[in-house]
């Protein structure tokens, strides 16, 4: 379809389906795009008119999210996951090979509108990569053979439903199950236990458990819940943060695949504790393929009176859950950006305080918890807070799911009690000759081999769950550079230190990668790192330099061997910059060239 031809799409009816509610703008745009394939300017105008909001707001939202297309994409839109673990498995070569087979340039649409190929951030398939999304569907375990098949299917315009189902197989890869992953719970069992305790009794068990948030920050869940419960405003909200965007993390995908009911039950337990009536799951766009099964699980719960009005026959216990989709924005994993996105806006993080527990979704008191955190509350309801607190360490109770990928024999999901040493994890996943582990994703911490005795726990090495393994053949500079590019891509653009700082850092790393670096560049990089860390508006910017800070400290030679030993080197080839003028003038005398500084040429 060309850019000028817009099929008659019942935009009115899509807007009506969403109740004409501007807070559902993002969901409306996602639906419009699903029906047209992209978001042509007239469609944005119609949406704005139908919602009676300024067109600029619609345009602003459409332009913010990576998965919303303001320009046409191919009828087959293929997005290769570009995380470092995928790169290590050869994703770049596979993508180049597919592009050449299909005669399409990366980032462009083929002349006939058939296909477009681009990269995207980690899609949560690190244990079965390289992977890509084709029209939103994850396609795993890419190989050259598979790329050939894909090229053929695209050329024949075979509908996705006719592609081999094996392509779309997503494995759970659970390698080590502990309390949570071995839980077999009848729907409603945890809820009945918590209801029997009464609201206060249930909150008390949560306090005793000392459960801390599994999304990375590690805030004590009961404290968050109590603050929300005690907030004066009515209409409280529970949000499940399923925007699992941290590169290398995929444990929430597995929980939502296998244990969605446990997650929903955890949300209901939170609603019971804080007195919330509304719940949202914010599901990252990359996990769009799980939407139908999640909705099905919700209707089953409604049918069993585990959601809806008067849950379990308790008058006034009204709570229901709806699922909102994200659209490819890492920053929306930050809870206030997530709330903005839930309200149908650009995912720009808010200034805190006020915190979401008092002013969250639409200004209402809101609990935002990670998928894993909510699932864990079922264990507490079933077994009691004390039993839960019996595992783990003093400040980090219970277990933690790790998403392990990279150089190891058995990548996948491992559940350990907190306090497990890194070396034990490495041994279990079949990793040998390891020089570094990236714990907690791109925003996390790079551990060198001399630190492998350290332990996974909030008091030592905290993590949201990513655990990427790098053996001695890997170049840690390239690892850091991949993460830097990721942050530059994902910066929301709101604050200057992050928008400009991540771009400067990306340029500096590129200069080093091309062998044009000098000592002064390392000083510049360290200066940009400090600026990002101290001046950014939110955690994305302040975490963006982490991989560089850590690798400069622990793997400095990986940087230094790329330097020219000079005081300063330009990032470009000076003599080549004269080539155009040389051609135009026909000159080739010594004065028509510029050598390196050592040549001692004088002005």
């Amino acid at each position, binding site marked *: 379809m060309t850019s000028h031809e817009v099929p008659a799409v019942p935009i009115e009816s899509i807007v009506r389906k969403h109740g004409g509610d501007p807070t559902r703008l993002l969901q409306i745009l996602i639906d419009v795009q699903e029906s047209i394939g992209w978001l042509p300017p007239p469609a944005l105008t119609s949406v704005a008119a139908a919602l009676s909001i300024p067109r600029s707001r619609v345009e602003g939202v459409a332009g913010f999210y990576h998965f919303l297309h303001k320009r046409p994409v191919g009828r087959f839109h293929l997005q290769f996951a570009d995380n470092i673990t995928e790169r290590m498995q050869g994703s770049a070569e596979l993508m180049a090979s597919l592009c050449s087979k299909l005669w399409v340039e990366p980032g462009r649409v083929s002349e006939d509108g058939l296909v477009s190929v681009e990269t995207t951030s980690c899609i949560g398939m690190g244990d079965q990569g390289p992977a890509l999304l084709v029209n939103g569907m994850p396609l795993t375990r890419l190989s050259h053979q598979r790329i050939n098949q894909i090229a053929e299917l695209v050329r024949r315009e075979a509908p996705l439903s006719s592609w081999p189902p094996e392509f779309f197989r997503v494995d759970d890869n659970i390698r080590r199950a502990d309390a949570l992953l071995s839980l077999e719970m009848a729907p409603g069992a945890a809820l009945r236990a918590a209801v029997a305790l009464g609201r206060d009794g249930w909150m008390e068990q949560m306090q005793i458990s000392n459960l801390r948030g599994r999304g990375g920050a590690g805030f004590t869940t009961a404290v968050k819940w109590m603050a929300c419960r005690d907030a004066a405003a009515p209409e409280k909200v529970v949000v499940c943060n399923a925007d699992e965007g941290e590169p290398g993390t995929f444990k929430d995908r597995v929980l939502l695949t296998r244990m969605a009911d446990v997650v929903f039950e955890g949300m209901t337990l939170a609603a019971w504790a804080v007195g919330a009536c509304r719940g949202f799951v914010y599901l990252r766009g990359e996990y769009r393929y799980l939407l139908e099964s999640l909705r099905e699980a919700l209707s089953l719960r409604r049918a069993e009176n585990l959601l809806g009005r008067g849950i379990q026959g308790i008058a006034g216990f009204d709570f229901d859950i709806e699922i909102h989709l994200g659209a490819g924005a890492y920053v929306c994993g930050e809870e206030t950006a997530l709330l903005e996105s839930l309200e149908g806006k650009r995912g720009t993080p808010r200034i805190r305080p006020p915190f979401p527990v008092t002013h969250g979704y639409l200004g209402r008191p809101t609990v935002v918890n990670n998928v894993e955190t909510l699932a864990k509350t079922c264990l507490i309801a079933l077994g009691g807070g004390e039993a839960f607190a019996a595992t783990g360490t003093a400040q980090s109770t219970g277990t933690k799911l790790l998403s392990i990928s990279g150089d190891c024999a058995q990548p996948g999901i491992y559940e350990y009690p907190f306090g497990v040493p890194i070396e034990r994890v490495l041994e279990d996943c079949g990793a040998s000759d390891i020089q570094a582990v990236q714990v907690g994703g791109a925003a996390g911490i790079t551990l060198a081999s001399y630190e492998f005795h350290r332990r996974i726990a909030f008091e030592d090495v905290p993590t949201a769950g990513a655990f990427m393994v790098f053996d001695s053949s890997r170049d840690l500079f390239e690892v850091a550079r991949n993460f830097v590019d990721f942050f530059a891509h994902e910066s929301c653009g709101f604050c200057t230190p992050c928008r400009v700082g991540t771009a400067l850092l990306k340029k500096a790393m590129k200069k080093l990668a091309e062998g044009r670096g000098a000592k002064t560049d390392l000083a510049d990089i360290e200066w940009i790192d400090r600026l990002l860390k101290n001046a950014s508006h939110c955690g994305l910017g302040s975490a963006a330099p982490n991989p560089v800070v850590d690798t400069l400290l622990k793997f400095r030679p990986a940087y230094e061997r790329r330097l020219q030993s000079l005081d300063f080197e330009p990032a*470009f080839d000076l003599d080549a910059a004269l080539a*155009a*003028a040389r051609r135009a003038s026909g000159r080739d005398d010594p004065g028509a060239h510029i050598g390196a500084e050592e040549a001692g040429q004088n002005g």
Partner: protein
Amino acid sequence: MNAPRPKVRIATTSLAGCFGCHMSFLDIDEHLFELVELVEFDRSPLTDIKHCGPCDIGLIEGGVCNAENVHVLREFRRNCKTLIAVGACAINGGLPAQRNHLDLEACLREVYVSRDGLGEGGVPNDPELPLLLDKVRPIHELVRIDYFIPGCPPSGEAIWKFLTDLIAGRTPRLSYPMMHFD
């Protein structure tokens, strides 16, 4: 006790600039009398010295648009302990960099070959003429720069403040009003 402090040696030049920053420098008016007590000038449009010797401070106006600019800039970097980018063109390329979105070869041919009445001699190729770079560059992309004085031009007051700070051994820092231009 207090031996007279040796004078600070300063060199200045304008690369792809308009000499506006130099004019602004002269705008320090009666401070010029204080300045000559503190400094002496090496290569500069003010002295007409052609090549720069060892200096304390180099002031560069303008960006880099041709091969000669590259050589002059390198000469300054080799000789100046502290090198300062003065004004918008030195810092960002400024007005001359507006040509950066044009293709240089096409541009030269348009002017010297295709245009009526100008097409006689073709693109000039005298070795005396410095060749143009394909893009106009800010000076920090070619050599290490120690300080930047923003403005188009920076006010005489800002240049004076910066120099007196440097000479007195204070890390130069312009207050907000000195960098506020609208």
